[in-house]
């Protein structure tokens, strides 16, 4: 694990996860302290049901406020956001959310790639992106884009991931800054927050 001194100062964290993602996310996010200051924005692939229970499920297990990201609202500090089902989620230059109905990417809407690419554009080097377990290739391209814009990239160790396909696809495309198990990712996020404070 890298020492905190070598970590950058980030202003937001984006996370992408697919199959096996709920458990992985709960393990990463539930240790975070109350009053955690960074915004965390998550795309988690789920069936396109009309309404998602994700925000409710996580609100019970996570200390920070949890919301479904709403079109045109500003990204607020210290809030955990989930992309709602059926729409792509992007972050604009003014750091507000926008939704769209472009075609599915890797059969998914919301797509991790769209969140990562737009957030890379909006935050540049002040972004950390985390890609977790999943059974498709979404997020790999977006993660490479984050890296290109100078952001910090973290991939879950495929050996530990419930389904290795997604983290492996990311590793095949670019070398991330960190390859870590869930516990390591959680600790890294805590350190990123301490630096940002």
């Amino acid at each position, binding site marked *: 694990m890298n020492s905190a001194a070598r970590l950058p100062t980030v202003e937001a964290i984006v996370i992408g996860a697919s199959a096996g993602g709920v458990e992985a996310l709960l393990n990463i996010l539930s240790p975070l302290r109350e009053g955690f200051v960074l915004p965390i924005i998550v795309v988690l692939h789920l069936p396109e049901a*009309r309404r998602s229970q994700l925000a409710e499920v996580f609100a019970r297990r996570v200390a920070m406020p949890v919301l479904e990201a*709403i*079109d*045109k*609202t500003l990204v607020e500090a210290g809030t955990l956001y989930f992309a*709602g089902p*059926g*729409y*792509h989620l*992007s*972050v*604009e*230059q003014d750091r507000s959310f*926008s*939704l*769209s*109905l*472009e*075609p599915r990417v890797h059969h998914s809407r919301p797509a991790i790639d*769209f969140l990562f*690419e*737009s957030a890379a*554009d909006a935050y540049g080097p002040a972004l950390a992106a985390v890609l977790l377990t999943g059974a498709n290739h979404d997020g790999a391209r977006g993660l490479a884009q984050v890296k290109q814009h100078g952001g910090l990239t973290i991939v879950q160790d495929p050996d530990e991931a419930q389904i290795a396909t997604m983290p492996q696809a990311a590793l095949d495309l670019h070398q991330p800054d960190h390859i870590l198990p869930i516990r390591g990712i959680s600790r890294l996020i805590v350190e990123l927050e301490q630096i940002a404070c």
Partner: protein
Amino acid sequence: MERNSEIELRLLIEAIYLKYSYDFRDYSGASIKRRVNHALSQFECSTISALQEKVLHDPTAFMQLLQLLTIPVSEMFRDPSHFLAIRKEVVPLLKTYPSIKIWIAGCSTGEEVYSTAILLREEGLLDRTIIYATDINPRSLEKAKQGIFSMENVRAYTQNYQQAGGQRSFADYYTAAYGYAIFDKSLCENVTFADHSLATDSVFSETQLISCRNVLIYFNKKLQDRAFGLFHESLCHRGFLVLGSKETLDFSAFGNQFEALVKQERIYRKS
């Protein structure tokens, strides 16, 4: 200092506006940027500047680009519970009007138009309704007018129709041929398809109901407010405004000029 790609994107959008009067200047940036990047590969251009040169000097190329910039992703009876709520909560009130004008703003390839016409026919209102179906993309409007949809999609639409409280067999409304469903022309007898931009055009008629679903998400707040202003002006006293499932009046300057009739389904009424 701005990145080259940001500068080029802004110049392209400005050039399109100056040359062709299509105004994407107040569209949400992330989505436009993705579509322009997609267009770069389609047009085999290595930079946005190269794409700009192409479309500035070649109207045909611009028309091709327009197809990529507008998003014709729609389906019939999308969000069935929305249409069910229209049937239950709005139709009884619409029935009190001797004649009805409906504006479907951003109708794209017509899925919403046919859904609305079918619902109105089943409720006995279609004969005394005029529907204005508008969009900025002439090719989408042409497709909407034809009313031909792939059978593959129609299977999903059939399920939506039933969940939306459909009263008949969905197949009653179309003829199937060669993998396509050709919709009953009489549904569109009172439909006027027209070119209209929420970004640059003004109100053209008084209406009782306006449906604008999954259009405003592509606009920034300023342009959203322009659109809401047009809708407010067009709607009669106590007229209805219906939006997409993730769109809201909550953060708009016009928020207090409308009240929610069925908030969950984004059905509002001019107050």
